[in-house]
């Protein structure tokens, strides 16, 4: 059986949700060892050890890994891969930053953003903004794979009892340093794990209007808030709200698109949602071609009315 090494996404204290779908995917490929690379990451390693399906946890605790700088963690992973067959990472911005660097160090052609495991080295993956699904088989001896989180069920966060083994650090490459971050703290569900998402588009006019129209509806529904690229580019909301081919891929139970036309790049990020609801004043907007429920009309009257009636 293949031995897989899973990249655990964490904040040193707890394990991020994205990891759980990766464990499920990795378990379909082979035995799962989870790698927790961080600084002061005992709690995260302990949490990873409890994930159902994880048989071992490797903990690399070093100041050089505090911010998951690719220059420092890629050599660590590449070194550890001497004992593993497949490196599996989430297709998050962290995974996408690190995995190709690992792949190149191992002289492996990465398989990005897999949707399913079809065989030991065979996977499906979306190409062309999800307008085509390719089935690819790797001929490399070792594999590097990133996983689309919405395509795999989440492994249980508890129930496992893997042993934690400390591994030596590869050190600091000395070519990069972390200066800071701007992470908005929010009580809202994260987009990639929200059950309901309300997204606003260019039609929302400006940041204040977005706040006053979209947010009350999202609050009523306990929903995450997303946006089209047009809304992000225009500065209505921060970049991490963008849903789409080049933003976040989401698949909630219910996705409500408000004043979004439905460009293929946007659809690529949300068309696997269970139920899509669209509110748009143009009855021919492409979004209605994928919407289960459509409501045609002016969002500035319809959305406040909807919020009021819920």
């Amino acid at each position, binding site marked *: 059986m293949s031995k897989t090494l899973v990249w655990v996404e964490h904040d040193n204290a707890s394990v991020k949700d994205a990891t759980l779908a990766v464990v499920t995917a990795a378990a379909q490929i082979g035995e799962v060892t989870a790698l927790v690379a961080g600084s002061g990451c005992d709690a995260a390693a302990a949490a990873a050890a409890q994930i159902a399906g994880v048989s071992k946890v490797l903990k690399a605790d070093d100041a050089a890994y505090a911010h998951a700088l690719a*220059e420092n963690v890629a050599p660590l992973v590449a070194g550890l891969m001497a004992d593993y067959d497949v490196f599996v990472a989430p297709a998050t911005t962290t995974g996408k930053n690190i995995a190709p660097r690992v792949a190149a160090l191992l002289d492996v052609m990465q398989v990005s953003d897999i949707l399913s495991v079809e065989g030991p080295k065979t996977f499906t993956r979306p190409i062309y903004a999800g307008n085509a699904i390719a089935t690819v088989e790797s001929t490399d001896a070792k594999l590097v794979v990133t996983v689309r989180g919405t395509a795999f069920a989440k492994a249980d966060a508890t129930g496992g009892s893997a042993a934690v083994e400390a591994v030596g650090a590869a050190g600091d490459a000395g070519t990069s340093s*972390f200066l800071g971050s701007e992470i908005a703290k929010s009580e809202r569900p994260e987009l990639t794990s929200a059950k309901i998402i309300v997204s606003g588009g260019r039609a929302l006019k400006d940041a204040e209007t977005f706040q006053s129209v979209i947010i009350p509806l999202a609050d009523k529904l306990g929903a995450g808030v997303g946006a089209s690229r047009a809304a992000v580019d225009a500065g209505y909301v921060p970049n991490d709200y963008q849903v789409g081919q080049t933003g976040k891929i989401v698949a909630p139970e219910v996705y409500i698109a408000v004043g979004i036309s439905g460009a293929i790049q946007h659809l690529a990020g949300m068309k696997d949602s269970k139920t899509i609801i669209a509110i748009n004043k143009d009855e021919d907007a492409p979004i209605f071609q994928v919407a289960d429920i459509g*409501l045609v009309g002016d969002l500035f009257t319809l959305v406040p009315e909807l919020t009021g009636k819920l």
Partner: protein
Amino acid sequence: MKALVCVKRVIDYNVKPRVKADGTGVDLANVKMSMNPFDEIAVEEAIRLKEKGVVTEIVAVSVGPAKAQETLRTALAMGADRAILVVSETEVEPLAVAKIIKAIADEEQPGLIITGKQAIDDDANQVGQMVAALLGRPQGTFANEVAVEGDSIVVKREIDGGLETVKLALPAIVTTDLRLNEPRYASLPNIMKAKSKPLASKTPEDYGVDIAPRLKTLKVTEPPVRSAGIKVPDVDALVAKLKEMGVA
């Protein structure tokens, strides 16, 4: 400092791709092709750094079919100084593209390499990071803002939770995200001028790179289609539907 920018010829982002009936790929015959949008942003950023006096020369590189010349001419018309086309009529995977870029970087010794964060055809999101690994240099992926400060570059990156800022020692690799800049259009005089800018034509063999694919595409299929649902007449009907679904 010299800047190397990587540009790829891809299906135009306005075109809806169609899977070939025989399941071997996406039909690109008679389809409008353009520069990958993220690469337009890469070229633009290099030009802005040149306008600031930070970059002295911009070399645009593409690996692709002979027709990728058009894409390079677009980069030259925007403001790149010269171009290198590495011709391959067969598809080249990101790892092999990265090896070719690495070999070119060894010759050209750029201080900065700018690539797009992903090509909108294969959506692999790999080449920049792979080039960085092969050169043993730092990477600033998904850049939202860059500033060269002495022998370093400060890169603000678009990450899942928001933004992150890293400082990288030059030479470095930067991959562009959407908000880095708004690319300019080439003016007609510049399009004319671009025709006489130097464009070298090379092959993967010139750089000793084996481009044999590592991945076999077994088949390419259409994704499951979603069919249009119903339209509800008013908010009350929508509320009723939401209640049926247990959402409200």
